[in-house]
């Protein structure tokens, strides 16, 4: 069940006949020609409403059904103009269908993507190269990154939300000039690792909003982004520019070290951790630089992007914490399934974990930690609870969308 890379572009489509088009202009031409054409004269109108009024006023006839439309969509009640006005339900159903067809993880295309951090592609000067090498060496030696993770229990003594030591890894000496966050770890233009840019949560915020409330802009944005989503631009440069000095056999881990991925590995469980997205039985150690083996970046983004949480990340550092999957919690009261009758096939054979716990290990369900919003006083409570800006913005947008429909 290898997932395809995030190649899915949601193209403009016609609500009446579910045809896809290269761009919205063509779609509008199509709608004019196929659906908004007057049967009684050569006139073409711009909308269903326009056509109805035209037929009524010019030809003095009763409103007719929209021509060439799918059953159920041939009425004039829905005002469609290009991609505008498509009922929410249908838009969503369409997207799901497209995702299913493309074999992309559900929900993965819903987000207009984060802007890719600007990278300077000019060749590195010797000085810069040396600086990067030094930074890299420091990184590799200075912090034993994978071990930063806390143990499997996933609890902290303070009772604070689990923060798998992730922020600390950013404090490592080599990149003090940089703000924390993987995508900018290499000042001199080694392009970020495929999914590095997705760790940049704030840029994703309100993705859902725009999806729900303004289909056209969402579409345009996703189309814009997907053109950028070119595998070829991802890996090679990273590994040559960033990891040239690493002669580690297991190239994978050297890349990891570089791009500060390891915080997302549950300690000691990298292999198990990987078996999720690639399906059981797949080799746990993937060759480095196999973009196809990663879920599409957007899949990572979907799901934990939060435009609606009260007390959204108060500072950029927190919001840039990488997505991760908390480790599987080990059983205390260990169980063993009793022998089952021969001839019976047990679907779930694990005695110590439920399917949901194993499922939660899939990279698809990784999320980034942000500090829990604290409400200091009752007044503050009101502010945090009721006036989180993201929430507000989303709320009003949605209302508008609904008015519009």
């Amino acid at each position, binding site marked *: 069940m290898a997932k395809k890379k995030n190649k899915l572009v949601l193209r403009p489509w016609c609500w009446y006949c579910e045809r896809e088009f290269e761009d919205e202009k063509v779609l509008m031409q199509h709608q004019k020609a196929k659906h908004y054409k007057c049967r009684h004269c050569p006139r073409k109108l711009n909308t269903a409403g326009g056509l109805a009024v035209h037929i009524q006023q010019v030809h003095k006839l009763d409103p007719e059904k929209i021509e060439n439309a799918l059953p159920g969509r041939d009425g004039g009640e829905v005002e469609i103009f290009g991609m505008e006005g498509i009922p*929410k*339900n249908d838009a*969503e*159903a369409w997207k799901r269908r497209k*995702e299913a067809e493309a074999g992309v993880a*559900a*929900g993965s295309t*819903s987000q207009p993507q984060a802007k890719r951090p600007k990278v300077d592609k000019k060749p590195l000067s010797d000085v810069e190269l040396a600086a990067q090498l030094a930074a890299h060496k420091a990184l590799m030696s200075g912090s034993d990154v994978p071990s930063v993770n806390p143990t499997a229990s*996933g*609890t*902290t003594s303070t*009772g604070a939300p*689990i923060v798998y030591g992730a922020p600390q890894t950013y404090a490592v000496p080599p990149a003090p000039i940089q703000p924390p966050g993987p995508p900018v770890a290499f000042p001199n233009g080694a392009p970020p690792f495929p999914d590095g840019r997705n760790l940049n949560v704030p840029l994703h915020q309100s993705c859902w909003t725009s999806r729900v409330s303004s289909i056209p802009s969402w579409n345009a944005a996703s189309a814009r982004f997907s053109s950028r989503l070119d595998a070829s631009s991802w890996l090679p440069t990273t590994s040559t520019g960033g990891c040239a000095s690493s002669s580690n056999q297991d190239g994978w881990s050297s890349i990891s070290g570089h791009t500060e991925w390891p915080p997302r590995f549950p300690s000691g469980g990298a292999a198990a951790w990987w078996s999720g997205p690639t399906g*059981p039985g797949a080799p746990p150690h993937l060759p480095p630089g196999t973009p196809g083996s990663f879920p599409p970046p957007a899949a990572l983004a979907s*799901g*934990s*992007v*939060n435009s*609606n*949480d*009260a*007390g959204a990340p108060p500072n950029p550092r927190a919001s840039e914490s990488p997505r991760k999957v*908390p480790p599987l*919690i080990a*059983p*205390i*009261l*260990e*169980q063993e*399934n009793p022998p089952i009758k*021969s*001839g*019976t*096939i*047990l*679907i*779930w*054979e694990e*005695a*110590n974990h*439920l*399917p949901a*716990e194993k*499922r939660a290990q899939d990279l698809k*369900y*990784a*999320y*980034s930690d*942000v500090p*829990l*919003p*604290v*409400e200091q006083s009752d007044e503050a*409570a009101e502010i*945090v*609870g*009721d006036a989180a800006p993201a*929430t507000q913005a989303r*709320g009003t947008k*949605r209302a508008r969308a609904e008015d519009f429909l």
Partner: protein
Amino acid sequence: MSMGGAQDQLTIESPPIDGVSAVHFSPVSSNHLLVSSWDSQVRLYHLADNSLKSVFQHRAAVLGCAFEPGGQYAYSGGLDTWVRRLDLNTEKIRVLGTHTAGVSSVVHSQELNALITGSWDRSVKLWDPRQGNPKSLISSHEQPERVYAMDIVKNTLVVATAGRRVQIYDTRNMAAPAQERVSSLKFGTSSLACMPDGSGFAMGSVEGRVSVEFFEETPEVQARKYAFKCHRQVTPEGDVVYPVNALAFHPIYGTFASGGSDGRVAVWDHFSKKRLRQYPAFPAGVSALAFSAEGTKMAIGASYSWDVPDQRRREELKERGDEMETISIVVRDVGEETKPKTGNA
């Protein structure tokens, strides 16, 4: 859809895009259905016009949700460990607090006017939803193992955990469980529901079996407890045994429905120990079930629960026509078929 055009059945038009973890009817209107999903959203559907009323975006997959009795607020918990109050009118979210691992179950106690959450961090927490973090936390109660399922009826809270443990609390005295039991089922607990009359509960396991147990500890009452097999399919290679993912009691008749990964929903009369009804199989396993407050409707969330770890087996299922990628929510009108047969009780 493969279910024929039954008129008494409504298929939600824009279902979640990943697994359905819980469905709940509003206690005040059987027209409102709350759905939590692995796609990180909690959705509120309006059933009369089959529309999506509001969407609450979470940071990670949502594993459980609950209404408060007034129907204005809902609560949610999931992988991101946060406990949230969702204002269904204004679509605002208040974060009540956090567990240290995924929140697996969320219930609301009308008697305490409190929210109760159970988590894989081996704790049950009580929250005052009128307060924000950190004032909201009322108390935390350590559990012997990860909390898998919880349900509440009046003042009785039942907490089913890993390690096949069951803790029964009187919510007026949460200091210690009133009873601690070991599940009579030999396999892991996957679902739990309390009888609406407060006399007992039903519990499902990953090995296609449901037990019916009673709270009262007298030997006569305890003698009535029993378990039965369900959600199994006879195939040429043998009996395939599916997990029981969801249980829900009918609020009026006291019968209950079970949903399994075999995609089937069955209604059971535990008084007469009979199956009253089995509905046609859903294209994917049933992952959530709920009855409406008046017991006139049943909501069924059907989605693959990631419980077929064997790739080969998955292929087989697909060949047999199981559409594991399908996610659907169906609301059925229910009536006489959920009523216990009189004279047998």
